[in-house]
């Protein structure tokens, strides 16, 4: 029930009984209702900012999230702001690192902040460069593939992706390199 801003009072039937009057039949007819704004937005209406974010992300296959009603769900703003620091910080300052793959003609760049952990990162890399990384284990690294994801850390050393906690990784990763073939074997992989 959306109400136009300029109300056409002539078209409506005005029952101007006093508020609280016992004339129930008058109340049962829809009185001329005037709203100063259209705040009662139903979920199907307005678009949400989350919708645009998910549109831009290539990998997003989920349908558009439902539009947001003001003040719903009833979660304190403090909690809302603190639950997803990764998402909001990513909009302002992501952690962009170059990604190279041996044999590929040019590099790509990705924002590490949009991923929650290694599985998501690996999946994104696999899709970006069209390869499969193999099974990761702490002892043996990546098994079953000639492609191995590695990264250069703050100290300039080349490390295997996945060995350290995710937060530590995002804080120390300077660039990513997907090694291929014989070079990869040097890191102790099959």
């Amino acid at each position, binding site marked *: 029930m959306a109400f136009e801003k300029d109300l056409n009072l002539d078209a409506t039937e005005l029952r*101007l009984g006093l508020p609280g009057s016992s004339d129930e039949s008058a109340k049962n007819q829809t009185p001329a*209702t005037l709203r100063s*704004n259209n705040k009662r937005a139903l*979920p199907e209406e307005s678009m949400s900012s989350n919708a645009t974010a998910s549109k831009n992300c290539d990998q997003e296959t989920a349908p558009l*999230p*439902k539009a947001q009603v003001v003040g719903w769900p009833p979660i304190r703003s*403090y909690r809302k702001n603190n639950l*997803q620091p990764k998402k909001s910080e990513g909009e302002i300052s992501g952690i962009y690192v170059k990604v190279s793959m041996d044999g590929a003609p040019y590099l790509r760049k990705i924002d590490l902040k949009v991923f929650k952990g290694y599985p998501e990162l690996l999946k994104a890399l696999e899709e970006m460069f069209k390869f499969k990384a193999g099974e990761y284990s702490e002892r043996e690294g990546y098994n079953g593939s000639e492609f191995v994801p590695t990264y250069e850390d703050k100290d300039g050393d080349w490390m295997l992706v996945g060995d350290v906690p995710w937060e*530590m990784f995002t804080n120390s990763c300077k660039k990513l390199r997907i090694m291929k073939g014989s070079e990869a074997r040097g890191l102790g992989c099959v």
Partner: protein
Amino acid sequence: MNMNYFPDEVVEHVFDFITSHKDRNSVSLVCKSWYKIERYSRQRVFIGNCYSITPQRLIARFPGLKSLTLKGKPHFADFNLVPHDWGGFVYPWIKALAKSRIGLEELRLKRMVVSDDSLELLSKSFPNFKSLVLVSCEGFTTDGVAAIAANCRFLRELDLQENEVEDHRGHWLSCFPESCTSLVSLNFACLKGEINLASLERLVARSPNLKSLRLNRVVPLDTLQKLLMRAPQLVDLGIGSYVDDPSSEVFSKLKAVIQLCNSIRSLSGFLEVAPCCMSAIYPICENLTFLNLSYAPGLQGNDLTKLVQHCRKLQRLWILDCIGDKGLGVVASTCKELQELRVFPSDPFDAENAAVTEEGLVLISAGCPKLNSLLYFCHQMTNAALITVAKNCTNFIRFRLCILDPVKADPVTNQPLDEGFGAIVRSNKSLKRLSLSGLLTDQVFLYIGMYAKKLEMLSIAFAGDSNKGMLYVLNGCKKLRKLEIRDCPFGDVALLQDMGKYETMRSLWMSSCEVTLGACKTLAKKMPSLNVEIINESEKLESEQLELSFDDRLLVDKMYLYRTLVGDRKDAPEYVWLL
């Protein structure tokens, strides 16, 4: 024998044993003599609505006041339904108290606007000031916090919970003088900025009485380890950043020192966390009674489940919904002492990935016989599940259910959830607080009016069909104190049926309902003991709208009314109309 034959001091001594606000209020109403004795001996006062009384009258009545609790904005302000400058300013209170001879020692504020000036004035006006607790407040920066640290020589408690604080990265923590050794409780988890870690270590080292310490996210794991070395007597710990390499030396030291911290009963935080480090925490879990992981999005469902399995003595659990229904099943089979459960959504706007459903709640209700307080955000709920929960649990004091889709029906039967909630109120006779959601008709309100006889606070959204719904509640719930309604088809007839009812309540909030300006004016005119406020936030007040805004037929967007002893407040902004 009539107590009035006893000298005043004896009566006063008897009153010393009467500590609850309700009881002391009752005592003061018995007779003039008791009123007088009670008011001179009263030290703790709770004011649920800061606009119901003035600071001057408070000071006049209770000259012995030591501890004051004040609440400001209406509850729905938490969800952005109230503009920031609506009101709830603490400054006039502090100014008045400072001018008086009141020896204030404790100030607890909720949903109030607190300026740096207020904090500074507070810190300089009361030499015995001991305890400051700010919950969901705003308007101050770390400069204000620094003033408290610097000037309150006997400070025992500085507890900042979920406040929006502008962080100036000043060295507020370093403002605690070396002579300050009295700290019992320090909670700065809501501050976002850097602090001087060395100062923190020194502060903890010179605070032998420190029992509660909640850190913010910039405090790293190696500092945590050093702090625990200094304060193994902690009872309540909030961890900031918990990220390290499990094979590091620092981590081994942490594991060792945690073994010594066998007084910890309450654990929270993990604002940044590496799941692989959680195993170090397991030794503390055995004795935990309160675990709050609701700000730890870095922990996945499995991590949560593994942790919870160690927490056999848990009484209160706050957790994110990524624990899943299965995880809640683990909680149900492990935490037999559980009284309070809060499950928050990890992604409030993601309707697709159902994290917890009615299944998790049913498992909890079956496994935790002592459950009395629930806050549950979920994607769906069924009548059958609620009826089962009502059979299993009859001790609920607080029952708040939030289905993320506001008008969702029972997905199995497509029926409204009237019967489910009806069952809850019927079997939980001690219910004091209830929040409803999902598809609901007037019928649920009929049940609430009939059965929820002890209900004090009710929150309703997108529910009901007609005025009857609201009337069932107003007529039936004799103990109702706070009623907050949004987006329901309740209008003037319901509002004006029993105007005297609102004098028995603290407040009523109605937004996006069908109440007209005329009805509000009528109410305000007939009930001088109520303040009726209309919040009109139209950003663009075009001239036609201005004309309309004085039309009594206008549907009011937000109305907030509350009983008061002191008439209209003088600090309302332009867009708040006091009728």
